[in-house]
């Protein structure tokens, strides 16, 4: 039968469709630019009002106008519609606007289905454990919406949906039941569905979204903003010895170019490959890194990386750069040798790059450094003096440094004397360059939380750090951390613990501990679900002894299984169903048939046309049976069959079971 395309929505349906949409757009609402949120919510509010005040659908001109305004707002916000966030924001806005014309069941179904699609797109941004709750909420809500829409559509002809015993709770239970039933099959599909080992299409690089994390430049305040972010950056599980906290310098972007305010990566160092690297055999630390997506190319490793993961290069300043930005969870095996000597000989190009400073900045520092230069006999002396300077002057390691204007280093060193790691690293590097010592800034992460239970190190965004490296003749590039000179506890305890101020209102230690424990689940989830790929799948199969299951064979196997299962179901199901329905339908008839079978075995020929009494008379005549058991059986059967309640079926069953036609008199 055709469903009427014009069937109208009822109130319950409308409310559930809106609920589904709102739940599925929640993560996007939280992460989209704030001014887009009211634009997104406005159509929803209008639709709710329309429901309760019985407004008519909006005229098409107004709808087009609203769409145009929304698209304009999007284009202005994102500058074009590239990028996943922009695309999903577009989807959210369009769905929300679709509500303006959603008065019919057909449209409501489109909105609900696309809400599920939207739910799917959200996993491009996060696949964390909290998303499990999100997926369940979306599924349940959409199932209930679909159920109500179906009811509304079915009863459209009657003008009124009849009340049944189904209320909200039973619908919830029904939805949950459906999900529970679907879970085993869904998980089996998840494990066995053939995966692609390489993507058919990738994300265009300009479609990347800005994400919190280290980037290719460092300005005062950039690491400080990371410091507020407790989301995991990566986890490392060490084989054998754990490094001490002061060894946990995770190397990330290395900066050479300074313009007076911000530090930038150098084109040269990004593109020249390391000429030699530590011998992996001699590396002291071996570990496995599970890295959360960053949308950047850097992979993180302890100084100095001895292994190069696939599709990655090791640059001349020992940054690990992936060929494509890391847009999803990535795992790699790494080994590090902290004793490696980095560039004992420095090429002229790099020497010049490591000494270059912009003209006309920080005159006071320049003056001080030339004085130091005159007084010092060696580079090492100047370096020691600088570290002492940070240590002995009244420098504060603080989260809220005062703002700096043009001469950032001057103002920091002589006026404010308050700063975060990036201020120290930047000032120290500038000081060294002014004294003629080649220096550069390295950013990355320092420290991490060691989980006893999972025995891995969890590094959060808030562990982001900046330090300096100076080139000393004979020993090469040497790491120096001026922050450690000011606040040694930063390196020993970690950034968050070394501050006595709270970062934000709900920054409590117990909460951080709870989050650290919770990360165990996140890591397990990452290991078992998020990181599952065609590699893991084939590893799983080989673990099960199914090495022959290559992806292509898997497809063939799967199709074969489906065909066989389908054939079995088609051939067997009717038989099974028939068997069951005949069994279920009439226990009395089964008893009677059993009785007749017993008689037949003994040589009695029964006619289908005989009534029970006739049959009993004939059988009794043939068998000359002692007593009147046969008659009694026939009588009981007749009673049970035709006059409900007066016959005792249990007695009949017993008589028939005990009945032996062989025992004749």
């Amino acid at each position: 039968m055709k469903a009427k395309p014009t069937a109208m929505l009822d109130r319950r349906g409308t409310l559930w469709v809106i609920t589904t949409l709102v739940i599925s757009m929640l993560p996007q609402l939280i992460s989209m630019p704030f001014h887009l949120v009211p634009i997104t919510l406005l159509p929803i509010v209008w639709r709710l009002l329309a429901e309760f005040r019985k407004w008519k659908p909006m005229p098409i001109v107004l709808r087009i106008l609203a769409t145009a305004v929304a698209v304009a707002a999007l284009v202005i916000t994102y500058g074009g519609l590239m990028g996943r966030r922009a695309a999903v924001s577009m989807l959210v806005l369009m769905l929300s606007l679709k509500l303006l014309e959603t008065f019919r069941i057909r449209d409501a179904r489109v909105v609900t289905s696309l809400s599920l699609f939207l739910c799917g797109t959200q996993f491009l941004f996060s696949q964390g454990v909290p998303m499990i709750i999100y997926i369940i909420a979306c599924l349940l809500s959409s199932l209930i919406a679909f159920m109500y829409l179906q009811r509304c559509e079915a009863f459209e002809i009657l003008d009124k949906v009849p009340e049944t015993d189904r209320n909200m709770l039973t619908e919830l239970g029904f939805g949950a039941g459906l999900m529970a039933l679907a879970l085993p099959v869904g998980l089996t599909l998840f494990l066995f569905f053939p995966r692609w080992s390489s993507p058919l299409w990738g994300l265009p690089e300009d479609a990347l979204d800005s994400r919190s994390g280290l980037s290719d430049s460092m300005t005062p305040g950039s690491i400080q903003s990371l410091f507020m972010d407790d989301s995991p950056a990566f986890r490392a599980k060490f084989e054998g010895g754990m490094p001490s906290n002061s060894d946990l310098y995770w190397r990330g972007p290395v900066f050479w170019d300074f313009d007076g305010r911000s530090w930038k990566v150098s084109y040269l160092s990004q593109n020249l490959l390391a000429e030699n690297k530590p011998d992996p055999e001699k590396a002291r630390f071996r570990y496995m890194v599970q890295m959360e997506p960053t949308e950047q190319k850097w992979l993180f490793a302890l100084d100095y990386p001895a292994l190069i993961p696939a599709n990655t290069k090791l640059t001349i300043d020992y940054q690990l750069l992936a060929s494509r930005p890391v847009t999803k969870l990535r795992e790699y095996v790494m080994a590090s040798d902290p004793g490696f000597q980095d560039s004992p000989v420095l090429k002229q190009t790099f020497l010049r790059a490591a000494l270059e400073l912009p003209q006309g900045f920080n005159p006071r520092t320049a003056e001080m450094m030339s004085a130091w230069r005159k007084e010092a006999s060696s580079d090492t002396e100047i370096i020691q003096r600088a570290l002492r300077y940070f240590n002995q002057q009244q420098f504060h390691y603080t989260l809220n440094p005062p703002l700096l204007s043009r001469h950032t280093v001057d103002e920091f060193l002589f006026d404010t004397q308050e700063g975060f790691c990036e201020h120290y690293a930047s000032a120290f590097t500038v000081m060294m360059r002014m004294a003629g010592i080649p220096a550069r800034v390295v950013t990355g992460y320092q420290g991490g939380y060691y989980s006893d239970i999972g025995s891995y190190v969890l590094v959060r965004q808030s562990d982001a750090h900046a330090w300096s490296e100076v080139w000393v003749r004979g020993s090469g590039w040497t790491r120096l951390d001026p922050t450690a000179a000011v606040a040694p506890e930063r390196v020993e305890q970690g950034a968050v613990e070394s501050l006595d101020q709270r970062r934000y209102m709900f920054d409590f230690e117990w909460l951080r501990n709870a989050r650290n424990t919770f990360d165990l689940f996140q890591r397990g989830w990452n290991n078992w679900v998020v990181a599952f790929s065609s590699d893991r799948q084939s590893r799983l199969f080989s673990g099960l002894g199914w090495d022959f299951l290559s992806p292509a064979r898997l497809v063939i196997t799967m199709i074969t299984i489906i065909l066989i299962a389908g054939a079995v179901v088609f051939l067997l199901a009717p038989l099974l169903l028939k068997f069951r329905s005949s069994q279920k339908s009439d226990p009395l008839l089964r008893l009677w048939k059993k009785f007749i079978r017993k008689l037949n075995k003994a040589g009695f020929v029964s006619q289908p046309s005989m009534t029970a009494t006739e049959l009993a008379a004939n059988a009794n005549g043939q068998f000359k049976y002692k007593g009147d058991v046969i008659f009694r059986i026939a009588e009981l059967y007749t009673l049970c069959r035709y006059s409900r309640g007066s016959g005792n079926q249990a007695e009949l069953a017993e008589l028939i079971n005990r009945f032996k036609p062989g025992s004749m008199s």
Partner: protein
Amino acid sequence: MATVTAPPARSSFREIISGRIKKRVLAKRGPLTPPFVLEYRHIFVLPTKFGWGFGVMLVFMALGGLNFNNNMALILVFLLATIAQLTTLIAYRNLSGLKIESISAEPVFCGEEANFRVFVSNGDDRQRFAVQAGFKEAQDCRDFKLNSSDSLLLKLPTLKRGWLDLPSFRLETRFPLGLFKAWSWIFPHTRCLVYPAPARKPPPLPKTGHGQTGLAVKGDGDEIHGLRKYQPGDSIQRIAWRASARHDELYSLEMESPREDACELDWDQLKGGDTETRLSILAAWVIAADHKQLAYSLKLPGTLIAVSKGASHRSRCLESLALYLL
């Protein structure tokens, strides 16, 4: 026979498919007459339009999930696909086991809608939701509680007098999500009697047999008809006390109304006009006479229905009009 369905203008894919399924059902099971129980052989399950659309969306989601190896998106897709697959079974179970008890239809006048009542009972210990009945479009919908029965109404327009056969119709359900429909074809052997449409402005009732052919009506009335033995229930006022005193037995008076006018509704009285016009005038007369509580007789070529009145007489007359020359 007067089977009235809209002629298929152009057989679409959907019609071809449903035609084939119908043929298959007929070939496998033969025409089924109520009462019978819906079983696996009767029930077909296919996606609805919405179901197809939803499936296409799932395919796109799966492609995206596979391409980016996004496992949570894949889990979502697999769960949705499994749930959708499960609903086929639920839809099937929503129909299977329902018993079509009987189908009946009251006679109607041509031009009115024929109402076929399909009595369905649910003898199982599970509820059924949103079971629809209809031809091309659903016409009625019901929920069935545990061990309950209810009737579904099917309406057909009537265009001709005579027997109107109820064509094959569908019992269908899209429960629970509307992604799949499960349906059964029912081939009933039920027909509805369609009386000729009564003429709008019929000539006045012919009053031929004044007081002769009409019957006196016994029972209440003003004139005394005679005496009879008292029967329990006779009114005390009606007891003929004098006569009773004479005979040692109670007698009551039997009363009657005066003989009524009776009319002869005769085919031959209607000169001119074609058969259908004549029949519709006769039908209008039957209705008018019945309405005035007159006794009447009906004479058609080859048929004579003697003078009488009352509901069954009316039906008999109208039926012979409806089936005249059919």
